[in-house]
């Protein structure tokens, strides 16, 4: 990551390249998947038509895409913000579980407060739960120099089992006598409002998009964002410039965790309306993939998240219409990411070479007259 970002680019050139790479990868992934569908005896054109119809073909399909995209966006920000500070937050999955658990804990208690405040408290609890789950890796990384990849990865499974335990204990979060481990229902006052009547599209999507836009501006135009990028690109230089690097890394890490927590909170308060055992099923890792696709750029994550969301939403339609299993959507996602990595290197080499040639040309210009004397 660092090497790629340290290459100086004219603003426009960088923009075009960073956009072209994922698009090319998507096209390649769709082509390879078409081959797989064809090999399995299906018709790729029909399958993709059904996929498109199921994700963008109607108001209900669009709403479904939005519902699927909302947690992906927040999980993507949880990783992407970390990228900018040079952090690898692989713990999105665990932060989602904890954020969902704390949001549920607040959401099922009848509080003597107005509805909007109950909802706000539940959402804030989700943020706090995710941040809390990032506390130990953040401390270890910022103040003890322990690599965050392994610690956050390990905590994902701890979180899943921890929440599972909460859902098995009647004194904690479990609904008594339920056929499957789950919490009691979230009270209506803590529900995220439904945006379009008759669909399940909830305000979590708006929350996610707003956070994306805010993040984009914070990273570009505020001292906090500037410090974050500085810490990510060159912590030594940041230290010389007077940034408290350890403290800043700690803080950014907690915010990353909080964003992951919001992804979980949005799912329980907006869509599922209960906390279920093992509900996250890989959203945290998909957020990781999204963040790399977009190179940590919040607006890129929004675009990529809608793409992943549309694949998930359209896949069930594809299965109903053409009989091609919905798991093909996962294959398309995975291939997209693999192609992005494969293409990325060529681009990096080309840029380095361009830069070397440029500096050589500059040197030549500087020394040129002397040689001719």
């Amino acid at each position, binding site marked *: 990551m660092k090497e790629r970002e340290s290459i100086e680019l004219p603003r426009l050139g960088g923009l075009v390249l960073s956009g072209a790479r994922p698009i090319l990868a998507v096209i390649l992934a769709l082509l390879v998947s078409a081959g797989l569908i064809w090999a399995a005896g299906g018709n790729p054109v029909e399958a993709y038509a059904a996929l498109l119809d199921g994700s963008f073909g109607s108001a209900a399909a669009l709403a479904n895409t939005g519902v699927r995209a909302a947690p992906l966006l927040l999980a993507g920000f949880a990783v992407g913000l970390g990228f900018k500070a040079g952090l690898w937050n692989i713990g999105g999955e665990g932060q989602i579980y904890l954020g969902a658990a704390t949001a549920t804990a607040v959401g099922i208690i009848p509080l003597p407060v107005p509805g909007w405040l109950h909802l706000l408290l539940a959402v804030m609890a989700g943020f706090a739960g995710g941040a809390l789950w990032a506390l130990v890796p953040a401390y*270890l990384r910022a103040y003890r120099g322990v690599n965050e990849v392994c610690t956050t990865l390990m905590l994902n499974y701890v979180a899943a089992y921890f929440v599972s335990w909460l859902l098995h204990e009647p004194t904690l979060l479990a609904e008594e006598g339920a056929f499957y481990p789950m919490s009691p229902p979230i009270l209506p006052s803590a529900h995220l409002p439904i945006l379009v009547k008759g669909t399940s599209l909830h305000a979590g999507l708006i929350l996610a998009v707003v956070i994306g836009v805010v993040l984009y501006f914070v990273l570009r135009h505020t001292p906090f964002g500037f410090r974050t990028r500085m810490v990510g690109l060159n912590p030594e230089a940041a230290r010389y410039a007077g940034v408290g690097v350890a403290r800043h890394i700690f803080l950014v890490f907690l915010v990353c965790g909080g964003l992951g927590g919001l992804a979980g909170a949005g799912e329980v308060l907006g869509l599922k309306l209960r906390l279920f055992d093992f509900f996250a099923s890989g959203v945290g890792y998909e957020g990781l993939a999204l963040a790399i696709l977009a190179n940590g750029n919040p607006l890129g994550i929004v675009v990529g998240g809608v793409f992943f969301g549309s694949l998930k939403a359209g896949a069930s339609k594809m299965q109903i219409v053409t009989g091609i299993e919905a798991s093909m959507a996962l294959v398309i996602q995975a*291939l997209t990411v693999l192609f992005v990595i494969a293409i990325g290197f060529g681009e990096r080499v080309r840029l380095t070479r361009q830069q070397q040639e440029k500096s050589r040309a500059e040197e030549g210009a500087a020394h040129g007259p002397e040689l001719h004397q």
Partner: protein
Amino acid sequence: MDLNSISDWLQASLRLAAPLMLTSLGAVYTERVGVVNIGMEGMMLAGALVAVAASFLTGNVAVAAICAMAVGGLLGVVHAYLTVSRRGSQLISGAAINFLALGATNFAYARLFATERARVATYPVLSPPGLRSVPFFGPVIFAQPVIVWIALILPFVFAWVLYRTSWGLNIRAVGEHPQAVASAGLSVFRLKYVGVILSGVFAGLGGSALSLAELGYFAPAMTGGRAFVVLAANVVGNWNPIVVAAACVLFGAADAMQLRFQTLGSVIPYQFPLMVPYLLTIAALAGLVGRTAVPKTLGKPYDPETI
């Protein structure tokens, strides 16, 4: 607890540890050459499915094992190409391989086995029946399928190669100081490729142990995070094949214990033993238990133009 239930528990521990131990063999090597492979989860899953499919078609478990190793190795080649040759992010490549394997195995499972869940030939128990009824050692050692024996023997072989051969020295050196290896005239790329491909091959074999040791069928997402337990064992076992395998046995024992907690009921919630490997790893990394010696260039791509 009487002797019988202890030997039962140890028997289950070893059987549950076998997939972890087999996967850990390659995991040590890939991390020793400096490449993190979280894609082993997907490689195990692919191995588990392919082993069942091959056993179903041929009825021969040796062929099934070889097919599982081949598909794992193939995914290993993908990971090596993306992370070593193209210097892509090891985590992203691994995560994408996991998604690919999850999607592809679900897809193939629905196509192949959805209508009939055929039970296929499993790894045989080789010892004579007389030995199996020996008290304690009978069930714990002799009544185990042959793959468990393989899993118990191979760590010693892998440790011998790593510590007692010059090729093993190259493997250990390449993750610590690739430039030194390169200036000795050896191919850093080739060593890294071998390490990563080994992790795929043995994750595939580990996957086959998961589906063919006892069950004889495949279930979607049946690996359930076992490769991450192996990564944990790697840290706890300090990247030494024998110690890592021992950690795998310990984690297998924790798994066997939680299954007993679930069926028999206990004061301790059954989720707690499941958390042990992960918490132990964090404690080890934080320096609370012993010292960890992480391979120096672990996770970093090698660029031959840097010195």
